[in-house]
């Protein structure tokens, strides 16, 4: 049922924000097809009467009190920034100029 296409991989790469090269798309299309065929076997036993488990330990209601704790200093916060302007992170234009 998998039959992953190159178009699909390109679409997934776009969703995942990775600028894959055409060769990578070709290779990943093959890899993904094989992997998906192989992992699809989960469907054999995943019947409707089986509940899903999202967490290994069944905890509920884990909360934090609403008490302020010290934040990072501005310098610490910005210490890893590839680009900054003053105390803010600097990012390239969001929209294409047109």
């Amino acid at each position, binding site marked *: *049922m998998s039959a*992953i296409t190159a178009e*699909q*991989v390109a679409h*997934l*790469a*776009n*969703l*995942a*924000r*990775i*600028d*894959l*090269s055409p060769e*990578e798309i070709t290779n*990943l299309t093959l*890899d*993904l097809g*094989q*992997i*998906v065929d*192989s*992992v*699809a*076997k*989960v*469907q*054999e*036993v*995943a*019947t409707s009467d*089986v*509940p*899903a*488990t*999202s*967490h*290994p*330990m069944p*905890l509920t209601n*884990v909360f*934090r009190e609403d008490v302020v704790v010290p934040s*990072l200093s501005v310098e*610490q*916060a910005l*210490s*890893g*920034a*590839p*680009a900054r302007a003053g105390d803010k*992170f600097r*990012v*390239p*234009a*969001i*929209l*294409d*100029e047109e």
Partner: protein
Amino acid sequence: MTELIRLTAAELSSRLQDKSVSAVEATQAHLDQITAVDTDLHAFLYVAADAALATAARIDARRAAGEELGPLAGVPIAIKDVLTTLDMPTTAGSKILEGWVPPYDATVVRRLRAADLIPLGKTNMDEFAMGSSTEHSAYGVTRNPWDRDRIPGGSGGGSAAAVASFQAPLALGSDTGGSIRQPAAVTGSVGVKPTYGAVSRYGAIALASSLDQVGPVSRTVFDAALLHDVIGGHDPLDSTSLTDAWPSMAAAATAGLKDGALKGVRVGVIKELSGSGFQAGVTQRFTETLALLTAAGAEITEVSAPNFEYAVAAYYLILPAEASSNLARFDSVRFGIRVDPAEGSLTSEHVMAATREAGFGPEVKRRIILGTYALSTGYYDAYYGSAQKVRTLIQRDFAAAFDQVDILVSPSAPTTAFKFGEKLEDPMAMYLNDITTIPANLAGVPGMSIPIGLAPEDGLPVGLQIMAPARADARLYTYGAAIEQLLEATWGHTMLDQAPALALATTAKGAI
């Protein structure tokens, strides 16, 4: 100094306490060993020699001043590069984080420092812990101290190799599908994946949040227990952290050394994790160990876990799905590298995509794309949803098994250390190598790997995996220590006293 580095953490600790050895001497000895062997092995990505010696000197001064220090105070430790550290770069083996120095310590690192252990440096790993061979590190492979043409396991190959080659008595690892236990198995060392939630994940760079667990890497079960006691326990910064009052793991390990510790212990052998697909020498050593256990009074039963067959498939849906989301934050805005696109406009979107293309290795991209697929509209129920159901079935298998037995055992890995490149071209073959270790992560139960001898056909270490019910980590230490003692009594020496001693002698000479 050779003698110092061959001490267990517990032995070193008692020498430090009786002041026959200083923390500076112990640290220097390990730094010397790193200098001697690590150019070749490449277990470390970063060595904090000056900081380690300075920390050691402060600890010596405090001890000299009569201060009461913890049991591991002054003992050096290596830290897997997946854990954030204030004073050392943290890359998770990825180019995208090259040179990043975090503004905070992971909770476990904070606890190490509070217990006065001495961080020696950061160890190599598969990029973002994706892999079983450390071949996927962006910074080059780590070699197995037993055979330098072979992998040290993964993703925590660096931590395991560091401990196995006496560069550190202790190390921290992280285990998402076997990344502590499998490297321990193939390097003849000890590794523990605690119960999910027993050790804080805060500051552990997430691979798959619902599977990741930080744990100890060492050469003996007792050393692992000492380290577990330091890093374990509730952390309010990790919402999945358990609030249990844990028993002392060190005391649990000590209990295993008593005569008759294994008498009447019900040991389950998982039918689905043995037999075909396992290397002959692995099966042989495993079977011999079972015989030893029987002789020591344990009751061996075969138990079936029919849904383990689906574990690898479920794992390779859940892990990529969570990872695809966890790794979204690597976007060139707040930390890490930024790469401009070769062509097209310089928008945020394009710069992010170009950075992620350049910064992530092929295995990371493969899993992100797979995870994105598994979560996307129209496929969620068939893949991610089904995988979560398989998770329920595997938990049920464990529950049924633990109704009959106290611990479960299996070989830690289907094979001994394989050669570099052997499985690199076939991702599914690499994934299937994790078949033994993955079920514990899916169910959240604790698992331990201890060495049980060398496979006759290749002379490489074989590991025994012991699993206990969730929250029963102490059981691993008790029975792990008992089995370790039994084996060493049979051999007349420790595991790492045999082949690696030779291998290291040559390595050390070669490096000098």
